[in-house]
């Protein structure tokens, strides 16, 4: 179908990142108070990203209080990164987006038999970050792999959500939603042992459970894009 009312496309923005270095709320609040008073215009309505990478043992309450603090002072936390899985539900509840980890340039691999050292060219290729999950994904849970593939070596229940920039593999039943190629990569695929999904999507093209042919139901399949069309194929019928 042709879309006339909107264009949906990917774009890049730069947001200030608040890197949290302590779980001590008092000192965090005090410092933020000082910083915001130094540049009130910068912080007012500012979209922010909270970075949890450097924190250990952060709790659900901590996250809630930090977000609450920022919001009541007119700042606008949009998302988090480096957040442990245990906070996922709270992140969701607070309507925050989960953003990818900081991109680190790939380390050059020095080969032993190389007698001459090779100058490294800074890599433009973003680091691939695959995500593995070995427990059943439950209704209401959301797993994301924003820099690579998402592999689930278990089933994903109805009402769960799997989201990946790359491919999605489910070595069990896929009963929830699977959204692959969220960055717009049309070459991504979804693979599963048993297809019973509520929704599958690749690079924005989606199909609902109702529109999936019954002959694929509970079968091992792969799903991919052919032109603008989402194709489902039995794994047993792959050439």
């Amino acid at each position: 179908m042709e879309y006339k009312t909107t264009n949906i496309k990917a774009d890049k923005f730069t947001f200030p990142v608040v890197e949290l270095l302590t779980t001590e709320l008092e000192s965090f609040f005090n410092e933020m108070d000082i910083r915001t008073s130094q540049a009130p215009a910068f912080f007012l309505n500012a979209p922010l990203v909270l970075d949890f990478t450097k924190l250990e043992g952060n709790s659900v309450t901590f996250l809630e209080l930090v977000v609450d603090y920022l919001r009541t002072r007119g700042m606008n936390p949009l998302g988090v990164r480096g957040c442990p899985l245990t906070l996922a539900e709270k992140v969701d509840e607070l309507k925050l987006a989960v953003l990818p980890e900081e991109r680190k340039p790939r380390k050059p691999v020095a080969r032993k038999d190389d007698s001459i050292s090779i100058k490294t060219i800074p890599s433009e290729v973003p680091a691939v970050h695959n995500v593995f999950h070995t427990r059943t994904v439950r209704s209401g849970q959301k797993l994301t792999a924003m820099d690579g593939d998402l592999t689930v070596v278990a089933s994903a229940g109805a009402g769960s959500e799997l989201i990946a920039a790359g491919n999605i593999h489910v070595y069990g039943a896929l009963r929830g939603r699977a959204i692959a190629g969220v960055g717009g990569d049309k070459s991504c695929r979804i693979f599963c042992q048993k297809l019973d999904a509520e929704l599958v999507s690749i690079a924005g093209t989606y199909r609902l459970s109702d529109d999936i042919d019954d002959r694929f139901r509970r079968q091992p399949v792969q799903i991919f894009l052919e032109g603008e069309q989402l194709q489902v194929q039995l794994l047993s019928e792959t050439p």
Partner: protein
Amino acid sequence: MGKVIVVTSGKGGVGKTTTSASFATGLAAQGHETVVIDFDVGLRNLDLIMGCERRVVYDFVNVINKEANLNQALIRDKRVEKLSILPASQTRDKEALTEEGVSGIINELKEKFDYVICDSPAGIEQGAVMAMRFADEAIIVTNPEVSSVRDSDRILGMLSSKTVRAETGGEPIKEYLVITRFNPSRADSGEMLSIEDITDLLAIRLLAVIPESESVLSASNIGAPVIMDKDSRAGQAYEDCVKRYLGEDLPHRFLALPKKGLIDRLLGR
């Protein structure tokens, strides 16, 4: 140190309280010091099923608010020696269950009892979260219908994110499935989910299947957990449930329709 087991479901009215009462009674009868706590503040029920409603003086919330100590609020069962009940308050709401208060009481109970059974209220809010918060193990109670199974799946997700074990990265909570109100003929006819469907969907260990049985209602009317009714199918299924939990390897009974005897068949019954 005792084990904390939450009995939970998400969906309401599936048999959590019935299961908590019988499971706790069974553990105590097998010789384990057991306490069962009613987390359903505002809709107190467990005391009725346990037949101790007339002996409630202080409750869970009184202890949290330090208006009574634990020993004053605990009720010793009159029939089963090692069994105690901590009743819920009927006049408060679930917000009265503070994290700090619940944590203190659970820790105190773990010192005294082998098993602390937490009868969760329905839903996914404060009361249910507090009931599961400190659990070591969980019994998921499910009826053979799609909505109940879906809610159980949601609760399983919460067990792996909202509990202290999950937040501190401890060993995952041990999860058991109890299917209640199972009706073989309705499962056979496809009206209800089959046992295979449910275990396939939830992918946790099946501890017991409790058949739909009128004896559950009569048991609650006389205030004696159905496990005490040794003649009833539901009572026997709960008995198996407890033994299986304690390590006995028993086959699941009551999955098929009762076989008709020769006389029944001759008489066309």
